């Protein structure tokens, strides 16, 4: 059980600050995800913990042990690589036993430990096989067994599911999560897939240009994004520019996209420019709604099974996305006038950057 602490960690590549003064604490036994678009520094940060990227400034700690000064092979941080990095010249057994041999474990104990690790990832009996005989999902499990067997202080995952097809990806992420919880291992998980991050994590850090934008539980991050970037990156919120209008003691009227949108509370001084973030699922097709509504014209309907996504144009032509249940009947012709009801309390206001 290890707590990982990143203390003002930085790294530059040429003129680019890949990791810019990042501090975070990852509590023991938690699965902590680094989420962000490509180039945000999440993989560099992970590789710093593993010891494959130099830490230029700051320090990294496992409990009260400083590890960024240790060579990579002394850190005991088991890493699962994006391409699995299974040694092609060794059998499954040889791969899993590799770390034990590196640690000079008594050879008599190795077979039992290898078999136990393979059982854990449901690959019992696969020991004598060669990597080229396995599927992508099986290779992934060998990679996981290979790090579990050395009983690492922490687990590191570098986009482990990106090479698998969609169905296997959802299945594997459940397995990874269950394994991590049953072993209680502190885990750092890198991904660019927001759904994966929300599904698997105890806590998520959203990274942008080497900086942490927001840290929190999946629910916090999704429901209370602190910045416009997080709101837009996570869940694809509609970002509408607007100008604050009058406050009636209860709501502020914001002029936006050729219409007026009501927002809960006094959000800004009259005349101030701002951004409104409205999640696609915060809008619903209105049927004689009491509250405020948005008038829009249907542009396109995407039917996705469980849900359907409506693309609609506001009076000034700005397009918004609206998610509704797939079972709902919608007048499907483009150009049809629609009315969307919303709860002013669910609209988040961000200052213009």
């Amino acid at each position, binding site marked *: 059980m290890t707590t990982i602490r990143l203390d003002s960690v930085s790294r530059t590549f040429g003129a680019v600050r890949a990791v810019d003064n990042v501090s975070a604490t990852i509590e023991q036994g938690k699965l902590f995800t680094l989420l962000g678009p490509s180039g945000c520094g999440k993989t560099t940060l992970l590789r710093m913990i593993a010891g494959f990227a130099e830490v230029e400034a700051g320090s990294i700690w496992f409990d009260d042990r400083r590890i960024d000064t240790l060579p990579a*092979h002394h850190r005991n941080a088991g890493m699962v690589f994006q391409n699995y990095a299974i040694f092609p010249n060794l059998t499954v057994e040889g791969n899993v036993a590799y770390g034990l041999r590196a640690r000079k474990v008594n050879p008599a104990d190795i077979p039992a430990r290898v078999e136990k690790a393979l059982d854990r990832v449901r690959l019992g009996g696969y020991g004598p096989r060669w990597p080229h005989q396995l599927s992508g999902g099986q290779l992934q499990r060998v990679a996981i067994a290979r790090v579990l067997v050395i009983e690492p202080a922490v687990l590191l995952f570098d986009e482990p599911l990106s090479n698998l097809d969609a169905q296997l990806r959802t299945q594997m992420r459940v397995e990874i999560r269950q394994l991590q919880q049953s072993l209680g291992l502190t885990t750092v998980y890198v991904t660019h897939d927001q759904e994966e991050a929300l599904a698997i994590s105890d806590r998520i850090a959203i990274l942008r240009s080497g900086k942490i934008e927001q840290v929190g539980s999946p629910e916090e991050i999704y429901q209370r994004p602190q910045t416009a970037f997080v709101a837009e990156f996570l869940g694809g919120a509609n970002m509408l520019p607007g100008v604050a209008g009058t406050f009636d003691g209860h709501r502020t009227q914001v002029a936006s996209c050729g219409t007026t949108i009501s927002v809960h509370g006094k959000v800004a001084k009259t005349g101030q420019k701002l951004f409104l973030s409205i999640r696609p699922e915060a809008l619903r097709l209105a049927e004689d709604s009491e509250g405020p509504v948005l008038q829009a014209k249907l542009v396109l309907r995407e039917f996705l099974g469980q849900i359907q996504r409506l693309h609609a144009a506001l009076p000034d032509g700005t397009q918004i996305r609206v998610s509704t249940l797939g079972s709902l009947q919608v007048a499907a012709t483009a150009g049809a006038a629609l009315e969307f009801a919303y709860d002013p309390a669910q609209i988040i206001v961000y200052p213009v950057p």
Partner: protein
Amino acid sequence: MKGFRYTIVFGALALLVLFLLYPLSLVLDASLRVNGTGTITLANYAQIFASKYYVNSIANSLLAAAFATVGATLIGTPLAFCLARVDVPGKTVLLTLATMPLVLPSFVAAYALVLLFGHAGVVTTGLRSIGIPIGPIYGLTGITIVFLLTLYPYVLMPAIAGFRAIDISIEEAARNLGGSRLHAFRTVLLPVAMPAVLAGALLVFIEALENFGVPVVLAEDRPFLAVDIFKLFAGEADNNPAAAGALSVLLIATTAIVLLVQRRYLNKHRFATDARTAPPPLPLSPGWRVLATGFSWGIVVLSLLPFLAVLFISFLHFRGPVLTWQLGLSNYSMLLEGSFRPLYNTLILATITAIVATLLGAPIGYIVTRHRGVLSTGLDMIGMVPFAVSGTVLAIGLIIAFNSGLLTLTGGWLILVIAYVVRKLPFCIRSSSAIVHQIEPSLEEASINLGMSPLRTFVTLTVPLMASGLIGGMILVWITAASELSSTIVLYTSRWSTMTVRMYHFLEGGEGAGSASAAAAILILFTAAPLLLVHRRLRRQDDTIL
């Protein structure tokens, strides 16, 4: 691991400076002084350009190289297209056979041409006896033909890789947009494969310019640069080391410029095509397919014919220089009755060279690939220098450098091994670097992550992963060292004479045609047999030969 890295880098740099740059600087120095003494002067160069003979020598060498380059491109490109995109019967065999001229000793092919079309050649006398006069094969014609037949794989191999690397979807896109097959070939396939073709063509030029064995057999008294350098340095009659030095410098300058042009061109004009699978064969009409098959097999068989002819003739009885049609082993008994020594020497020298060159080249290739930095870039560049230096010139430099003083090496076996190792080093570095490129860096990271130190990771993971490729490269080094002539002829002593030297002397004497054919046959056997035995392993390395 850092210590390991610096040891390799500085050790390799020290060796290359001592055995490559220092000798070459002495050659340059000799070329700038009259009679090896006095102040620096360009008199030797002035003398060369004033002499009609030497100007001719330079012109002939450039012409032969240019003809060979153009010819090899014209043959190699369509052949590559056939082998990459046409369902030619026996393609696997054909691909193996097509690589053979690269490692078979080219002067043996030249000798075969003499046996067939020389003054007393089988074909010449045969045709003359039925009244058809046939011109001499000696000089530019013969030399160009041999270069063409032995060097075209330098164009063929990268061109095949080039055509194969073009994803079929690119071609389909061209056709989908309304282009005919021919149009697609002209506007998409050929331009994308062209950098590979031209890079190979420039290598043909360099190899042809440097080659010593072919002109020495076929030039007779005509001036040729590589031969004249040797004669001026080692000849008994008109010995003139200063002029040899000046010619050497001119030769190196030319090859170096061409090599630099090739590098720059490749860097600028390489297209990323990343085909996931090789494109499928073209659906051809039976007529076209027969034509492609005939062309492909024709070229490959033609290029191997000289070697087959030598093999056959070596079993025929010679009466003096005249060939008879009696079968027998008399040539072999004559060759070996003197001594088995040259045969042993060849085996010993080639084996030591293969081991040392691989042990030296593999870690250099690894570091040059994995660690980008000023030092490794410098090492990479210096490591390629031997490519631009002909064997004769390197050998002359080694003699000047190590003839006396603290480190006297002339007369022994070591200087031969040094020359071979230095000459084979670029190949070893590049083949090792190509192998390292195929090993995912994440494998090594995974090993370190699991607790192996970087040095142990290199020894227990990287080396075994590289091993199979390295053994293939080692065999190629062995083959080319066993058939090396150009530096051996300058450096050998009677104690350390080799099969190639023996063959050269038989040829020079004129009387030993029979023994020469036996020596040539043994050389072919030495080179072809290991190549065929390991061709599967070598297949992956075809590209790295270049």
